[in-house]
């Protein structure tokens, strides 16, 4: 039996639903030997800002039970370097590229998109709104529906390519921010980003991370991510969703698809196994064969409930 693994996130068709998540796959070219980017549904770049950023001091990562906390602090080479050094090669290889975008001011988001519009082979943008808006006293864009709608609208005006907004699970009102992003013109919503968390070194009596707080990812958060995705799917059943959070196996992907995701991203699993997205994809195909699912799209939103 042949399985049609293709899917679509809004107007964007993907050869398969498994992407590499932002911040866990570099700029798409680091693992050519272990996980070629053109084999994935898409690659989402490390978050890009207009200028390069050095990120946070170390330690930046700490392992937790079935998870890890990171406080990389959005270190990146800047959009200019990405467009010059990586975008072309990704395009030549035939990879579908989503640029993860962030800034401290709305215009910075816009600036990143504008620069990318002049580069080749970029399929769309994912706005990382889990960053403090310096114009609004550091409150995260993703926490305030009004700011989020305005930010999304600003970015929407800058591109006709796919525009996804990546929701923060720490927002007081998840569904409210989802509505706001859609009102601002988002084509799809990605969820979830990492959950604010902390680890303490009992011997040194200090936070383990240099910044004390960071974001929790990995299998530990999957049950929360799945619930959040399903909640947003129920509230906005026609909006395409991209599921993310602790995906480790093909069967995890099926869970997200059933809950309403049109595609998924794999993050922390890549650190354990650089080829994890490929393994997950083949497990997904095996599942479809075993369960006689001819078209992957038949699974999307297929949860039998209530």
């Amino acid at each position, binding site marked *: 039996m042949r399985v049609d693994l293709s899917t679509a996130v809004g107007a964007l068709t993907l050869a398969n639903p498994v992407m590499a998540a932002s*911040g866990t796959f570099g700029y798409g070219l680091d693992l050519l*030997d272990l996980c070629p980017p053109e084999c994935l549904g898409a690659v989402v770049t490390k978050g890009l800002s207009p200028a390069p950023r050095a990120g946070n001091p170390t330690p930046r990562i700490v392992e937790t039970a079935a*998870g890890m906390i990171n406080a990389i602090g959005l*270190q990146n080479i800047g959009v200019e370097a990405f467009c010059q050094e990586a975008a072309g090669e990704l395009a030549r290889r035939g990879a579908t590229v989503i640029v993860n975008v962030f800034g401290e001011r709305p215009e910075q988001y816009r600036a990143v998109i504008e620069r990318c519009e002049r580069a080749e082979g970029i399929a769309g943008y994912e706005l990382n709104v889990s960053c403090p808006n310096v114009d609004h006293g550091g409150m995260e864009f993703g926490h305030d529906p009004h700011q989020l709608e305005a930010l999304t609208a600003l970015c929407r005006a800058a591109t006709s390519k796919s525009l996804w907004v990546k929701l923060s699970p720490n927002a007081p009102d998840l569904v409210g921010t989802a509505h706001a992003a859609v009102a601002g013109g988002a084509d799809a919503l990605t969820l979830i980003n990492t959950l604010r968390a902390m680890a303490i070194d009992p011997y040194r009596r200090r936070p383990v991370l240099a910044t004390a707080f960071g974001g929790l990812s990995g299998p530990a958060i999957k049950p929360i991510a799945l619930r959040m995705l399903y909640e947003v799917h129920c509230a906005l059943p026609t909006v395409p969703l991209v599921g993310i959070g602790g995906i480790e196996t093909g069967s995890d992907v099926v869970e997200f698809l059933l809950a309403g995701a049109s595609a998924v991203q794999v993050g922390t699993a*890549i650190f*354990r196994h650089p080829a994890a997205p490929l393994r997950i994809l083949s497990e997904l195909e095996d599942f479809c064969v075993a369960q006689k699912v001819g078209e992957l799209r038949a699974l999307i939103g297929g949860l039998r409930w209530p």
Partner: protein
Amino acid sequence: MIARRDVPARLVERRELSPTCFSLLLATMERLPAEPGQFGMLSCGQGLDPLLRRPFSVAGVRPLGSGWGVELLVKEVGRGTAWLRRAPLGTILELLAPLGHGFNLEAAASTRAALVAGGIGLPPVLFAAERLAETGAPFDLFLGAATGDELLEIKRCRAAAGAVGGKLVLCTDDGSVGEPGFVTTALARRFAAGQRWERVLACGPDPMLQALARWSVTEGVVAELSLEEPMACGVGVCLGCVVELADGRRVASCKEGPVFEAARLAARWRP
């Protein structure tokens, strides 16, 4: 081309080396093309506990039966290394290797080098020592530990240095074996007394590397230091393991390192 691969590695031998350290011999089908100073990311459990692999320097690669063996020296410090110490022989581990950039052995072979290892910093240094000995390049080896029973693989160290007419200097913090005090002090004292090394290759605890870095920069000696930053991926994509270089750049130590020339690391130990 990058020669790294993610391969199954069967645990075939374990030796206790000290109260806290042990060696592992892992069998692989093909020869791991590792250079001294390079490392691998090793699974230290089955399932999700612990979640991440752990980085270990390669201590040696040699033929083993019809395949190849990779040697590691490990210190038990937490749950991953505790698991490695107890995993039954025959267990299949996952090894992603070789990773990163190792020592510049060619440069070391072209002069008389000092190799310096503190505690469980030995594995990459031992690998370098045995490689240099094979090629007949002379070097001296400084081996330090907190206590005498934590000095690892003394015989092999002596054999390697001896094969090329080099000296093995042992130091312990408690003075129970060899010279009392730090291995860096022993090195600096000999240097001050006129002995000369143009290059130093070192691995060990951070304070030792820091002392060596200062000393080497002052004395104009090239020191290559193998760093140990916490790592999640080992392949440059998480940016968890960055070190700050003298030029202000933060680079992934798993990719540009783990071996760096001391002069490039000025920023790392800035107060």
